[in-house]
């Protein structure tokens, strides 16, 4: 129960931080914002690595592998696409 309470605390605080940070992004940058925050959601990769690496059963390893593939697509694709978009906003 202790662990859960701490986790919930972190959760609530993170929401406040998210709100404060994100409301400062101007409409011009909303698409890169969606793309950039989508890249961050690839953090699932961390969980996938643990699943794939623990090697408990064939099933969990297979699930882990697939999860790693999916999450890496999310991370790599997400950051690269965001970068491409943002490069266009640089003053030439």
């Amino acid at each position, binding site marked *: 129960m202790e662990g859960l309470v701490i986790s919930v605390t972190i959760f609530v605080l993170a929401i406040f931080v998210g709100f404060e940070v994100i409301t400062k992004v101007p409409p011009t940058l909303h698409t890169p914002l969606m793309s950039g925050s989508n890249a961050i959601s690839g953090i699932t990769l961390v969980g996938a*690595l643990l699943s794939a690496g623990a090697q408990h059963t064939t099933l969990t390893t297979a699930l882990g592998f697939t999860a790693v593939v999916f999450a890496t697509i999310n991370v790599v694709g997400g950051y690269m696409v965001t970068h491409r978009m943002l490069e266009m906003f640089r003053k030439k």
Partner: protein
Amino acid sequence: MSNALINLAYLLASVLFILGLKGLAHPRTAVRGNLISALGMLIAVVVTLLDKSIVDFTVILAGLVVGGAIGAIAAVRVPMTAMPEMVALFNGFGGGASTLVAGAALFEAIYMSTAVTTDFTVATVFSGLVGSVTFWGSLVAFGKLQGILSGNPILFPGQHALNAVLLIAALGVGGYIVADPSQTMAYWVLVAIAAVLGVLITIPIGGADMPVVISLLNSYSGIAAASTGFVLSNNMLIIAGSLVGASGLILTNIMCKAMNRSLANVLFGGVGGEAAAAGAPSADSVYAGKVKATSAEEVAMLLENARRVIIVPGYGLAVSQAQHQVKQLAELLESRGTEVLYGIHPVAGRMPGHMNVLLAEAEVPYEKLLDMDQVNPLFKETDVAIVIGANDVVNPVARTDPNSPIAGMPILDVDQARTVVIIKRSLSPGFAGIPNPLFAADNALMYFSDGKKALNELIAAVKEL
């Protein structure tokens, strides 16, 4: 590496994510912000690999290489106009990963006969549900934007009742898993029901409302990641997932406000599509005899002495890929002493900021891209407003008719300009399916053509002046 060190590294990564998102607040710092965020991700991943529970790296390496290759190739080859659907697709994969990880954690606990707490199983069920809805919903969003699926809302009777039943069924199965976690098959049943639900709640939403849906799905994938964080007791997932969850929800809220429609209306209202809304005036009664078609030469004459021109882009600009032509025309006019500005409506295009990205690709200086509140007061002192492929966002009916589907939606006041030129292929309705009296206004001229073609003709005509 000790647990304390790992968690400290996670804290560092979280800080980098937050700083990265802060960097996105201004074009100047945005690129750097994204790189900082990527660094945070790198640290999180590397540190996780040092976790002692990982015994074998071959599977991981294989997964990273395959996923990395697919992600990189897709990111590099996708054209800018397909950005929204790519974000939807990548997001879906993230959601799917959460479901798989939660499932793996559950099966692992069963295999190792570890006693599981209710918190654990509830979080697992939640991740499985939300992750699966996100994955399949994102696939549908991708399909709709790519044109694989119909952009019209796909409606059928009893739809909402069916979705409610599916949700209850999913929760029921979830409850069953919490009561008896050893039933591994039940997890797959849950995922399958959630998949169907994900598809069914996304297909009734019209193609042009997809930005709201993508924003919401983005939020869901963050929530799924945070939930998986509860499952694995991993702070990194909880913090990053919450950040993304919050980001998505806020954006969704902003976009709904900009359309003056509630989220419920967007998700369940079945709004949009080609069929005219019931009770709306017929197109004929609005347009007949009052629409004036124009030509490049005529518009060029209007532009000849214009002191200020405001360009209003819409989704049609993206479809026609005419952003470079717009830039050329603007530069041509500016060289003749005309002030050229751009009015960007918050929901123009398929994603928030879609028009901005498109015009940035054409190297239009971003200071010229004005948002609605900045640009609306300027229209009454504007000689020519050029609307390219936009419809509902400039439809005055939003101000005047309380029964219209777009009633109350803030619009760009282009009708206040001296002359409005609308570049559009035909009089076909926009997303809301209603006629637009702007086209029949006294100060409006319709330039019936594809965007790129029209702009090329205009550029040639202005050069001839």
